[in-house]
């Protein structure tokens, strides 16, 4: 009954929970965890992520704050809620059956290899808030199609009056990138955005997002060609965008 109430609360406060998200199962401290999620503006768009830690199930959701994502690590005896921030740190709240009211709290840096000069979440926020829309295109010289087929993204963006920002993948070979970027109208400034990373920017290259008008699109991925780029962009614009 308590678990049912939890999910009822969750659905009430996250009216746009997508049909394709999952629902984490909590065995204790549901009201306290729910309150924490609500306080941190969880969108409730939970997706399970594979775990490198034994016997713990992990779920992750974006929040309504750019750069802030929420992760649940559900074990048999404890639940850890991690809330990241755009500044590159996270707060951790560990709940156990006996410590629902007073979870253990800690703070840590979000380890990363991002460049300090890369486009970070602060800049991403500015792009999202702009009235005009921008195509963010992430490339890697090790993914040849992200070079050779950028022209199709470029042409489609121009047709749709999108500004374009190209960003280099964080782990890309910089020397290689410098050598080939100019040939394909790409720039070698890196992406250093936690928001884009958590949205799957680094699952594959190229990856792309459309931002602006206080919205961010789902990730679009893959090399596109002249006979399908329009259709894939149509799909992207028809898909649900997260509003800030």
């Amino acid at each position, binding site marked *: 009954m308590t678990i049912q109430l939890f999910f009822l609360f969750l659905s009430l406060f996250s009216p746009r929970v997508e049909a*394709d*998200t*999952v629902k984490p199962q909590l065995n204790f401290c549901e009201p306290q965890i729910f309150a924490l999620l609500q306080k941190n503006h969880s969108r409730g768009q939970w*997706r*399970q*992520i*594979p*775990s*490198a*830690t*034994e*016997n713990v199930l*992990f779920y992750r959701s974006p929040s309504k704050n750019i750069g802030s994502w929420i*992760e649940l690590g559900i074990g048999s005896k404890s639940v850890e809620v*991690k809330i*990241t921030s755009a500044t590159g740190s*996270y707060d*951790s709240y560990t709940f156990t059956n006996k410590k629902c009211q007073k979870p253990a709290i800690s703070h*840590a840096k*979000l*380890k*990363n*290899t991002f460049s300090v000069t890369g486009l970070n979440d602060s800049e991403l926020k500015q792009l999202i808030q702009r009235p005009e829309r921008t195509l963010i295109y992430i490339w*890697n*010289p*090790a*993914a*040849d*199609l992200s*070079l*050779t*087929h950028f022209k199709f993204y470029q042409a489609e963006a121009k047709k749709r009056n999108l500004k374009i920002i190209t960003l280099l993948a*964080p*782990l*890309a*070979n910089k*020397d*290689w990138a410098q*050598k*080939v970027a100019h040939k394909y109208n790409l720039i070698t400034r890196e992406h250093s955005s*936690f928001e884009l*990373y*958590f949205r*799957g920017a*680094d*699952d*594959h290259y190229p990856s792309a997002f459309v931002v602006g008008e206080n919205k961010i699109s*789902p*990730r*679009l*991925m*893959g*090399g596109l*060609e002249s006979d*399908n780029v329009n*259709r*894939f962009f149509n*799909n*992207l614009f028809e*898909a649900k965008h997260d509003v800030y």
Partner: protein
Amino acid sequence: MMFIKVLTLVLITTLAKAECLPARVEKEFPSELASAAFMRFSPEGDFAIAWGQIGLNSESNGATYLVDLRGKKPKILRTVLAAEAYPVEGDWHLIGSVSAGGTTYYELDELLKSKIFTRSAFRSNVGGLYHVSATLNTDKQNEKIVRTVSYDKLEFSDIKVKFDNGKVISHQKVTTPTKYLCANLGKNGVGPEVMQVMLSKDGKELVGIPGTFTGYLKLFKIKDDYTCTSEDIPISSQKPMFSHPLPGKQNYIAFHTGAEIGAQPIPFGQVSIYDRDLKKYLRASLPEDKVVSFSPGTLRDGRVIFIRSDGKDKAKLVITDPYQMNPGVEGLRCLEKKSSANSNSESQEIKGNR
């Protein structure tokens, strides 16, 4: 006396367990190719194929390299293959190289002989950027069907290939009633829209990543009439890889994703499998592994293979048994030395002259 003998036999039978494969093995791997976005591993883990740039003097964007892992030190061989050339899933006898309007197939043996003049074996006219191929068995020895599928609409071709002593001696396109797989699940007579595609080792299942992010993979079971059923697999990952057939189990899906927060520096990833019988994720890499290879490989013996970085400039090839990596999970205790690919695949493996 008889009682003692029987008891001894029972005890021996009870206590004797098949030997497990090693839980984890590491080998050298050339660091110059470690972070290749495109990499594939052979079924025995003796070769890898990767798109990379070794030395920055050339004007080209890069080249496809074969990495020979058979000896103590890996050897890198440059090839004539195009970007994102890929092995035919199954036994790796053939490598496909995508070019305008189709795919040209080369025999691995020919590629190993020469990097400049390499005889091609045959060609498929399936176009598109992202391809995958796999071999299907027929009822004849030394004959297979090479199935090639392209992204987006799942355009495909089946080509019947005959071998003699491991060499391609003839090929013939199979006439099919449709040129699109799974058209019953798509629109306007073409297959469903997926961006990245991967076939199972037997060519009868296909997994695809939707172009617009959904958090799920689409898995299609291909029937004999080329229609399909589909299900959603709850993975958001880079290009997934089917395992080779496992005795008594469905094949699993291996993939590379980001790790849980705090496990390792963003954006290094981790490797996991999705066990379709247990409907569970099982880790195949350790929390401290900085995984750099975009797609893990799967070996014929069921293990997973991937590349990890030391965070600086060295790389290691890692082979793990995901079942031993997750001892608390019910089901398979370990991958056994005797539990290699099922008899169908093994008996019809095309022998080459490597």
